[in-house]
């Protein structure tokens, strides 16, 4: 059906094909390139948490007994908002030494609470006990309680919250 012309000039048919291919490529690129961006864009967003959370005035914490401070942080993933609650024990020792411990048990992440009676942190799940500075006294936890990096600025305690 396609008759090859002996003319040295481009045939009308070939010209149409070239124009079609050219316009088609442009249209493909206009749609194709945004689609690539659309697919990979969530991967390009940084989702790391790196902030200093204030726990209030240092003077508000008693010396010798751990005191719990709780706060929440909300994380947004696309259309979903997840609110996580954090609990930390602030321990002021008499020598001026300070320790900030996570209240999450290192065994299976239950929340431990401080007991004045036992002078230990007790985990309700498997009866684990941690000493006042976080060492494991009894039970299954594989590690001492996690410590937060902290600093004291203008009389306020701040802890370093990092993730990801």
């Amino acid at each position, binding site marked *: *059906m396609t008759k090859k012309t002996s003319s040295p000039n481009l045939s009308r048919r070939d010209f149409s094909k070239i124009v079609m291919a050219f316009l088609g490529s442009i249209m493909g690129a206009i749609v194709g390139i945004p*689609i690539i961006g659309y697919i990979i*864009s969530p991967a390009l967003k940084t989702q790391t948490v790196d902030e200093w959370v204030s726990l209030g005035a240092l003077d508000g914490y008693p010396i010798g007994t751990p005191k719990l401070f709780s706060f929440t942080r909300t994380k947004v993933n696309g259309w979903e908002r997840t609110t996580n609650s954090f609990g930390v024990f602030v321990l002021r020792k008499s020598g001026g030494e300070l320790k900030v411990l996570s209240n999450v048990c290192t065994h299976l992440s239950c929340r431990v609470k401080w007991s004045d009676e036992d002078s230990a942190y007790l985990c309700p799940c498997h009866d684990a006990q941690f000493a006042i500075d976080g060492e494991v006294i009894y039970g299954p936890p594989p590690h001492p309680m996690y410590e937060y990096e902290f600093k004291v600025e203008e009389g306020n305690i701040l802890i370093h919250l990092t993730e990801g």
Partner: protein
Amino acid sequence: MSGNTAEKIFAWLEERLGLEAIYATVLDRKVPKVNWWFTLGSASLFLAVMQGLTGVFLTMYYVPSPDKAYDSIQYIMNGVAFGWLIRGIHHWGASLMVIVVFIHMLRTFFYGAYKYPREITWLTGVFLLLFTLGMGFTGYLLPWNQRAFWATTVGTEIVGTVPFIGDFLLKALRGGTDISAVTLARFFSAHIWILPAGVVLMISVHMYLIIRLGISNIPSDEE
């Protein structure tokens, strides 16, 4: 690398796939001298493909659930690169497609192109028009905003006015008495699976018949 290598690869494929025969059958068809109204079928096909492509990519982020549908679209519009463009094409393409398909139908009607031997082409076209409207109707609910909700309320109530079985049809459409999570899920299912399956099937038959029978001439005064 030279044209020679490319030619060899093409020759290898050609021998096995018969590409040139497909090309000749599909594109190198004899057509009568016609006017621009005859491009509307191709325009409809192009729009259908665009709706399919953008729709596929929208499902990557869209969630058909009452508590997340609206938020997920907000995310597409503001949180994802070019999300506004993909959704914009899908949104405006939908309206444009209804218009183009309808004018395509008018052209076929006024040129008498539905007559022997093209009755089945016309019949599949009727289904394609209905499916296009169905896609518009089911897609309209998916943003789950006030307009979507009330438009679907009214639209399904119209179905409810059918004598005798209207009440049943309304409930079947909504998946219950109210517009609910069930309605959203079934409209979504119809929008992305059931109706597109019908569209693809009908387009296949439609295209096969156009290739088989060719397109009709513009009728002259004597006819």
